[in-house]
């Protein structure tokens, strides 16, 4: 958590020092660019974060977990993929839902599909960062390109399971 922010500020500090060392206005231009991006992003981010917190509360994770067992095979992968899309929150919430699923007996391919789906469709990131920074046409292109990825990941997981015993996703 705090390691991430230390790295981020370390990077920011280093880059700002490098820009300053050029002494040709690079630093000022960069600062201006940063301010522009921040002003576009911050108001949207604020609303999206608030919305994400409420929606995360609405997901019935224990109920869903019952449908993710290994005997459900591909169906479990599909349900898990759909659930992953519906988690509009950061890794803390997503991975704790994943752990709930694992404890409730979800299959490894289903868990792979869930985490993959959350990681590429996480709605909070789309609203907070992707739309403001890259725009809707990039979002559309990306969603079509990765649409099948979670199912594919789960499918590969199922096929790997034919040859190897998959490790359990549960943690004490």
């Amino acid at each position, binding site marked *: 958590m705090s390691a*991430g*922010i230390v790295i*981020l500020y370390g*990077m*920011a500090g280093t*880059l*700002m020092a*490098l*820009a300053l060392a050029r002494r040709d206005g*690079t630093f000022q231009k*960069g*600062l201006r*660019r*940063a301010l*522009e*991006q*921040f002003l*576009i*992003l*911050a*108001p949207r981010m604020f*609303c*999206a974060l*608030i*919305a*994400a*917190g*409420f*929606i995360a*509360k*609405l997901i019935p994770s224990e109920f869903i977990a019952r449908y993710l067992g290994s005997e459900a095979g591909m169906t479990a992968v599909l349900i898990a993929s759909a659930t992953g899309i519906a988690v509009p929150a*950061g890794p803390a919430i997503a*991975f*704790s839902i994943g*752990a709930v699923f694992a404890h409730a007996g979800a299959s*490894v391919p289903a868990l*792979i599909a869930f*985490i*993959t789906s959350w*990681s590429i469709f*996480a709605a909070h*990131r789309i*609203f907070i*960062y992707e739309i*403001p*920074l*890259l*725009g*809707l046409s*990039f979002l559309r*292109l*990306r969603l079509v390109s990765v649409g099948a*990825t979670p199912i*594919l*990941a789960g499918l*590969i997981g199922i096929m*790997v399971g034919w040859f190897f015993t*998959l490790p*359990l996703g549960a*943690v004490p």
Partner: protein
Amino acid sequence: MAMATDMTMSTNEPTITEPKEQPWLRALLRRSFGRSFWGFVLFAIVSAAACYVIIGGQAFNEAVENDISMVLKTIPRIIAAMLVAGMIWVMLPRDRLTKMIGSESGMKGLVIAALAGIVTPGGPSAAFSLLAVLGGAGADRGAMVAYITSWSMLGFQRIIVWDVPMMGAEFSLTRFLVSLPLPIIAGMIARALPMRMVLADPIPIKGDKP
């Protein structure tokens, strides 16, 4: 994205700021509180109402508490990420990068982009601002999709910090190996798709276009 001249800002102190700074700042503010911003406000209100109606007041209060701490945690990250992205934006050697992951870069470009996604540290604030920088610098759409897909699915920092502690190292490794080819496949699909893609660029700096 179309968010042109909606939302008239209440600018009742036009004489105070320097004449040169004013149009830039005003255009910027108009854009940051433009139509799409109000869409976000509506989205937040609707989800709050749904939460209150469906699961009741207590859970609603918990969500509000979570929200506040999340906002406070995120703001410093955003500031740092924007500084990183801004500085990289002005210092990046565009032509060299375009050669590496531009539209002529082929399979090699996709692999480089996917590897870059795995090693990019930090959260979405850093990754998406870098993606915007790469796009502005002329990275091709396949490389952009491969980069962000790889960062999302396989980003090393998230795996170490979250995946391994919460799901177990064996599961994380399995997931990592199973998913390894997928960002590159996604990039190939993005290249092949006949879709128009125009990047949003928040008010480009004059004379700084690639």
